[in-house]
């Protein structure tokens, strides 16, 4: 980009990449902005790719379902890596996610061992959100 008028020509999308590692065979549902982008009984590492608009708010959720605690003690899904526009968000910022589960264990984590939903909410354009979480100071406007 050589001048401001070329700003309209840049890629206006953000690529989201989620890499998951199963422990056992977890029943796992993955959503981005209400779109179900993956649901499966995971048996091996998977990578999911998705695209959203540059200015979109983003809600990413990973839900573990149907775990039977008595017979599948170790079943879990690990969010090995989550990146947006090739910027690593998880595990670095896992404390920003909400983890609501049937054991009421809300500690920041990317290891999901309970039935429940882990949700990362980006409630403004991604780069404005990143500015805030990286503690980059005040924003004009």
């Amino acid at each position, binding site marked *: 980009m050589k*001048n401001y008028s070329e*700003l309209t020509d840049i890629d206006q999308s953000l690529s989201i990449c989620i890499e998951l590692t199963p422990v056992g065979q977890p029943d796992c549902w993955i959503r981005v902005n209400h779109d179900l982008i993956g649901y499966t009984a995971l048996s091996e590492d998977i990578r999911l790719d998705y695209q959203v608009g540059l200015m979109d708010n983003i809600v990413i959720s990973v839900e573990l379902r149907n775990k039977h605690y008595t017979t599948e003690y170790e079943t879990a899904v690990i969010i090995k890596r989550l990146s947006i526009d090739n910027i690593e968000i998880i595990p670095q910022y896992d404390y920003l996610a909400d983890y609501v589960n049937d054991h009421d264990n809300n500690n920041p984590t990317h290891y999901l061992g309970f039935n429940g939903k882990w949700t990362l909410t980006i409630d403004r*354009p991604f780069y*404005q959100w990143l500015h805030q979480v990286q*503690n*980059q100071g005040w*924003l004009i*406007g």
Partner: protein
Amino acid sequence: MRINNSGTYESCRWAVNDGLTRVDFDRNIKTVAPQDYFQNHMAQLRTELLAGQSPDMCQNCLVMEQHGKISGRQRQLLKAGVQTQWFEKSLASSPLREDFDYSAVNQGQTDRMPVDWQIDLGNYCNSACVFCSPESSSRIATEFKRLGLIDALPPASWCDDPELVDQFVSTLVASSDLHYLHFIGGETLITPGFKTILTALVSAGLAPKVTVGFTTNLTVWSQDIVDLLVQFKQINLGMSVEALTPVNDYVRYPGKLDTTQHLLDQWVKLAQAQGWLAQLRITPTCLTVHELFTVYDYAWQHGVAIESCNFLTEPPFMRIGVLPAEYRTQAYDNLSQWLEAHPVTTTDQIVNTRNPNLARQQIHQDACSYLDFLSTAPDESWRLPDLVAYLKLLESNRKNSVLTYLPQYEKLFRTHGY
């Protein structure tokens, strides 16, 4: 935006500057309202930037970035949400995107008001630092006149005129998004205009929404000013020091290291108690760069950041590059050894140098930029005779000697006319 000592507006506080106060009545508070200058007169500059040009006034920042030093350009972009490593997409996502679009289709004009000011209060100062100029120190101005270096003293500051101060404060009050005011002296604490403007801002009810930045030379304490400052939303406190060794007394003449150290501790203690952001402000020269690590060390011990606006260019004979290779190597080794003894865990570039949680990383980053500069700055040792002649002239008035403070430079200075 900046208003300089003469009341003339300048677009950028980091712009290339020859050290002289510009006096331009086509863009002066006496003739043009601040918002008119910001919205209309700066349109040409906005147009150049939107066209992707790099104006001459931006060259200081580009040099800083070459040496890994965080520039004013990077810091100002950050306030608009633009990070240079993700320039295009962060620009497209900026909260100011609509304002940029507006300027792009309106020949660079804007309907916004300034949110961030540098306010030059004049040159009223009780110090006469050897690298300073009459524009920034009344004491050195008097000395220069006595020594025949200038014919006349700089004109009075715009903020000595109560009407202009009232006009300026009215503009600030009308600026709905006003956020940051950075005051420059002289020595701010003894400059009447500083107290006048702070008092006016408090009276206007602006203090709870405005952050004030200022720098003190660590020679005085003013409880009156402190009592005003505590009413503001936040304070960015700058404290000028070059070395925590006796050479600081020579360079920041007529400082006394005991007083400097005492006031430094007192300000840091106050800043910590009030939750203010404290920074040490350094102006490294060829006379102090070899003891610069002592300032980094203090900052490291106290969790205080370091800031130097740019690599010194004026006066040219005090640039770090004036040191011959042998002396530069000594300075490099001193700083390098200090850095090795004070490692940090991350080397990610810190653009927001005012993030107190990253003070040590920021100190490390700043020290690394000087390490790089020491090893790569152009050789200007041919300026040594100018340096020696200048110091001898000052010393003829001050009755001191640089060799009392820098005995290790005796051979160097003797061979160049000392």
